[in-house]
């Protein structure tokens, strides 16, 4: 048994579902997490479970992810019609994703359904390793305050942990992330949930260090989703 820099027990199967507010950073964190784990030599399957907007998420950057060792379950552009309007939005293979060996990272799409979307995932109720992580960006007006976050997370259904993903795109500073870390940690305390990490783009993460001001690990992420639109 050994630990990597953020304390992952290498032998244990990792199953994480990223949920949360629209445009909160679910996809970005899910795919960064998948790449991080793949980089450690782990077998990783990344699942696009966005049933509302599959077009905007993982699909367009699948090839890049595959090249970096991640198995991707997501639609290919040519396979869909109508981009979430006229086509099937849940890829049948995604429903059985938990049957895959190795780590499984799920990008759960937005919508008022919240964590209920997991009901579409076979075995979600019984999988012993599944962690449901709510991604929070306090720069988004609907999750700007402790009260907003608490209310929203309570409405989501099953949530095992929070992740602070506070940022302002290119304007993100360490102070922005740290303010998010404080607010998210306070909300987590009220919700009696752990905070798994603060996520920040590489240069800001470097500035903050290994842990944020609340003592939670910092995840250094790269921005891929900007490419995803095309």
């Amino acid at each position, binding site marked *: 048994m050994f630990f990597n820099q953020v304390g992952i027990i290498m032998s244990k199967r990792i199953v994480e579902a990223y949920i949360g507010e629209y445009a909160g950073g679910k996809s970005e964190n899910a795919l960064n997490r998948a790449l991080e784990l793949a980089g450690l030599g782990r077998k990783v399957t990344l699942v696009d479970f966005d049933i509302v907007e599959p077009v*905007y998420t993982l699909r367009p950057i699948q090839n890049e992810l595959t090249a970096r060792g991640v198995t991707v379950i997501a639609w290919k552009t040519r396979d869909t019609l*109508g*981009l979430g*309007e006229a086509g099937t939005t849940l890829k049948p293979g995604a429903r059985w994703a938990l049957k895959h060996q190795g780590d499984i990272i799920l990008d759960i799409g937005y919508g008022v359904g919240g964590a209920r979307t997991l009901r579409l995932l076979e075995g979600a109720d019984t999988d012993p390793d599944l962690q449901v992580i709510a991604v929070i*960006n306090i*720069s988004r007006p609907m999750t700007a305050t402790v009260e907003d976050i608490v209310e929203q997370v309570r409405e989501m259904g099953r949530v095992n942990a929070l992740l602070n993903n506070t940022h302002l795109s290119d304007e993100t500073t360490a102070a922005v992330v740290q303010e998010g870390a404080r607010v998210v940690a306070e909300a987590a305390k009220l919700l009696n949930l752990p905070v798994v990490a603060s996520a920040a783009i590489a240069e800001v993460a470097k500035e903050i260090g290994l842990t944020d001001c609340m003592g939670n690990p910092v995840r250094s992420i790269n921005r891929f989703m900007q490419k995803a639109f*095309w």
Partner: protein
Amino acid sequence: MTEKIIEQEKRAFLTGNEVVAWAALAAKADIMYGYPITPQNEIMHYWTRLAPRYDKRFLQTEDELSAGFTTVGGVLAGRKAFTATAGPGNTLMQEPVSMAEMLRLPIVVVIQQRGGPSTATVIYSQQEVTMTTLGGNGEGMRVVYSTSSHQELFDYTIKAFNTAWKYRFPTFVLGDGYQAKMREPLTLYDPESRGIELIKPEPYVGKPGTPGVDRAPSQFRNTYSMEEELLEIVNQYMQDYGEMAPQVAEYQVANVEDADLVIIGHGVVFRAVRAAVDNLRARGLKVGYFRPVTLRPLAVPQIKEVFSNSKKVLVVESAYGQLARLLKEAAYGTTAEFLTMFRPGVGITAEEVEAEVEKILG
């Protein structure tokens, strides 16, 4: 329940559709009527989440005809009413908009353009320019703001309500699927705290007092028997429109004084145009840009000036000449060589614009 919507200015990270919902709240819109169509859905999603908190209303209608005509009803009742649609929904929306033109009803319509013709695509397009500026069976008596950033979506959605209620012409905010879904930071603010006066709506019908007793009945029609009668009305409206035009028309221009080539683009494409001009200038090429913010009315004198002082003009758009057609009319009688870069329904990057310009300027 009712409270100030934006207590203090703050930077926030939003998608374009959410920006519209927040801007409508900030503009003190009372009610939204809407019908689902991608890529505008999250305007409704966020309006319906936010509206009850501020005592605002929403009605999901049976189609876009109904969304438009209920919006017409909301405005007739003296409320700030708006709707949002796209593509085939915009096609249907032209019918209620034409009634709004005839009755001078300040409805606000947000369009997030999609690819066309027909159902086509939902992410990226500027193919609803002709329809939004000149649609319906009329004379295009509407104001169309074409935005290029989330800050502008916020600013111009607020402005759209003011323009509509001030001049009583239907007013559009023209975005696109990319802006709708794109995420970027902007400053949310309360317009009144910034000294922006929000024009108060007034009822057309359901006015105080008893009609026929205290006052004349307030009655409106859009049907005319006599051609002369209609001519008088339309001439009056077009005169009003013409007088409004210089006050409403907006544009952005840079680096045109010494330019060998002026690039023209609007909306999200303007982002690529502006970046291309910066990059090309850095490489020593004499290029400038002109960007119409209002596509209707256009800033005609400024367009004529650009076309008179430049040797070449390059119109760049994610459509097959819908902006170019408007510009040709505005620039009629000028001499600049008219070059085009049409990419109907697909995105345009700064690099692509730069390559085109380098080809032209050789």
